[in-house]
């Protein structure tokens, strides 16, 4: 875990206003509990996610939503802005996802419904949200995905191959009203690692202002993707932490990992309401 220097204003005597401090801590606790709910447990497959705010609370978001057809819907996103305002919009985004995931057929439909639901609010507030939504089908071993201005996931296959996914373009939420999001599908192999991330990872900076960048991330993924999912997550965290060397970060760092293990895969428990 990273140590971060907090960037909030302090009182003239050097202490943060106690009431403000208490309320920020409570808000942080709420956000952390919502973000770090129980992960779905999968047979012969694993998912994990972590979000590390640059400030006391952040604007990045990820979530899992098991569907009644046996698929797992995954979402990761980044609210434009930082701190408390971004955290408030992150909660708005989470509500829109949970509501849309229940009633939509695929990740493209989910993003379309979410944009319809919160477009007006985002315009009034002058904000935007980038999102990547994907359905993992454990039976067919397919990943169907749609993007609202967000980076596509990286698929690491063994120690040599990083797969470039077919591009799907889409405007970030809040960008255009009534926009529709296209989908693409790839078939995964046993032992593939799917790595979803936000820009805070590749834009993490060391004290000299140098960025971590995609090349370092790719290298870590290739070197570690045969490990179990928690070890991979730790390896990535350690790599970023070593690179940044405790330099304060400007952006939240969030990642979601999906590891396809050998054999068939079924979702066996849920962190979302059953349909």
């Amino acid at each position: 875990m990273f140590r971060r220097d907090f960037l909030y204003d302090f009182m003239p005597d050097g202490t943060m206003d106690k009431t403000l401090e208490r309320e920020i801590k409570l808000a942080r606790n709420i956000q952390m509990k919502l973000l770090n709910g129980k992960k779905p447990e999968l047979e012969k497959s694993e998912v994990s996610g972590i979000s590390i705010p640059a400030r006391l609370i952040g604007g990045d978001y990820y979530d899992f939503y098991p569907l009644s057809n046996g698929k797992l819907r995954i979402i990761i996103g980044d609210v434009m802005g930082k701190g408390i305002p971004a955290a408030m919009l992150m909660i708005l985004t989470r509500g829109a996802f949970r509501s849309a995931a229940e009633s939509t057929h695929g990740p493209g439909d989910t993003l379309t419904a979410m944009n319809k639901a919160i477009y007006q609010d985002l315009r009034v507030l002058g904000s935007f949200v980038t999102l990547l939504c994907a359905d993992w089908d454990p039976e067919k071993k397919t990943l169907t995905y749609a993007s609202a201005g967000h980076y596509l996931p990286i698929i690491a296959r063994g120690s040599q191959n990083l797969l470039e996914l077919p591009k799907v373009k889409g405007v970030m939420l809040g960008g255009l009203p009534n926009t529709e999001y296209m989908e693409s599908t790839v078939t995964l192999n046993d032992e593939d690692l799917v790595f979803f991330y936000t820009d805070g990872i590749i834009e993490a900076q060391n004290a000299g202002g140098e960025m971590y960048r995609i090349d370092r991330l790719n290298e870590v993924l290739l070197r570690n993707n045969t490990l179990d999912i928690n070890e991979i997550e730790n390896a990535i965290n350690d790599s970023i932490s070593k690179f940044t060397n405790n330099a304060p970060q400007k952006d939240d760092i969030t990642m979601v990992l999906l590891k396809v293990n050998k054999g068939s895969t079924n979702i066996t428990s849920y962190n979302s309401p059953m349909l």
Partner: protein
Amino acid sequence: MLTLSITDDKNNVKVNLNGDLDIEGTEIVNEELLPKLINFSKVNVSLKEVPFVDSTGMGLLINLVKTLQEKGIVITISDVNKDVLEIFDLLQLPEILGTDVIVS
């Protein structure tokens, strides 16, 4: 640290931004730059000296463009470097702002 310089010629104004465009530039863009531009009819913002724009900076830029467009002001963004242009493409900024806003 983001800085800016402005040169104007009657109704037209050119803004040169210098430095990373991120959350540190919020007050500079919203409180310093924006009010200075609303009395012109044509605005050009050069990003020649902006090596990096993060998601917050993108939001600042989009809101700047949309606010001026709503007031009937023609705004263009020019001299965008390759890395920043890739992010513009990912976010589909031309679709959001209009295809004639980002110019070479």
